[in-house]
Every structure is written in structure tokens, then in C-alpha cells.
């Protein structure tokens, strides 16, 4: 799976959740800020546990954060 096929709403969700910074989100889900930057830019596809942790942090289902946009989607 190409990483660019996985779109995400993290940036929008961060701003909707009190303008949360990338560092704050990184600390909440237990990764580095660089990883949040890479996920936001669709350069890195997170593991399923990390994807669930991000969704749980924002209080939305996982498909509310990540959308698969591959050919067979």
C-alpha cells in the first residue's frame, strides 16, 4: 500500500480540539513530533494501534481520522 493512499484529518482535528499542537498530540499518543508530521503529510502510514490511539485521543472513530483512497476503495 502506498502511503499516499492513506489520507487523514489529523490537522483539522487538532485545530478543532483546542488548536492542539503536534507536540501535544505526539505526547498524548506516545510518538515523536516528527512522526506526527510524517503522518499528517501522508508520508508515513501508522500502525493500527497508533491509528487507534490517535482516533481515541480525538474521540472519533478511526475512519474519522484515516481514509483509505486506494484503487480498490
Amino acid at each position: 500500500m502506498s502511503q499516499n493512499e492513506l489520507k487523514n484529518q489529523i490537522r483539522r482535528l487538532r485545530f478543532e480540539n483546542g488548536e492542539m499542537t503536534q507536540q501535544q498530540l505526539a505526547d498524548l499518543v506516545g510518538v515523536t513530533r516528527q512522526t506526527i508530521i510524517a503522518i499528517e503529510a501522508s508520508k508515513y502510514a501508522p500502525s493500527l494501534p497508533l491509528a487507534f490511539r490517535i482516533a481515541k485521543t480525538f474521540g472519533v472513530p478511526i475512519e474519522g481520522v484515516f481514509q483509505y483512497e486506494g484503487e480498490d476503495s
Partner: protein
Amino acid sequence: MNRAQKIAWSLVITISTGLIAGCLAFAVLYFKVGMPRALAGFALIGIAGLGGLSSLIFRKDKGKVAFDERDEVIKRKAALASFASALLFVGLACMIPFFVLGPNAAISVTWLPNIWIGAFLTSFFVHSVTILVQYGWRNKNESK
């Protein structure tokens, strides 16, 4: 830029500097004193050894989390690439003399440590470049 990137950059710089300086010194000595004394010029490749100090210079990253799953993936890919490159180097170093000199030729055993050093440098260089490519040469798209 995290610690792994800083170390990778310093290794790329020191290894490149060592190789360029060594080759230049060899070339200059080759025309001045000829072989085999010109081989002493390659001693400047030792500059690459300074890269080993980078892990002492660059301290651990600050912050709650210093290493995560993405770092792990990058580390694994870099290790795989460095192993493959070292294997390729040793393979070529063994096969090229065979095809160039022929099956009945003999070479000095002094080449063996050189092959080891070459494989070592290749491995570290490819490891560092892979890390830099995986992370991105610099941090783009950074925002608050």
C-alpha cells in the same frame, strides 16, 4: 532533526571527506613518489573514523518520547540496506580480482583488511544515507 539524523549526517560528511582526501592524497603521491608508496595516501581515509565520535557528541533527544515505531521501521530498513551493501561490496571485492586476474593468479593477503575496512565504510555510509532518505533530508511541512 533528531539524533539519528545528526549522527547520519556526520557519518556521511566524515566518510565522504575521508574517501575524497584519501583518493586525492593517493593521486598526488602516485605522481610524486609512485607505487607502492603512494598507497600511504589512503591513510587519510582514517578521517572517516572521526564519525565514530558523533554518538558521543550528539546527546539523546529531549522530549517525552525519543524513539517510536517510525524510528524502529527506519532503523530496520537502514540495517537491511547496510547489510546488503556490505555483502555486495565483499562479493564484488572477491569476484572482480577473480575475473580480472584470472583463476590462477595470487593476491597479497594485505587486501583482506582493506576489504574489511571497505565493507565497514560502505555499510556505515549506506546506513546513514538510508536514514537520511527515510526521514527526509530536512524537516519539511513542520507546523505547530
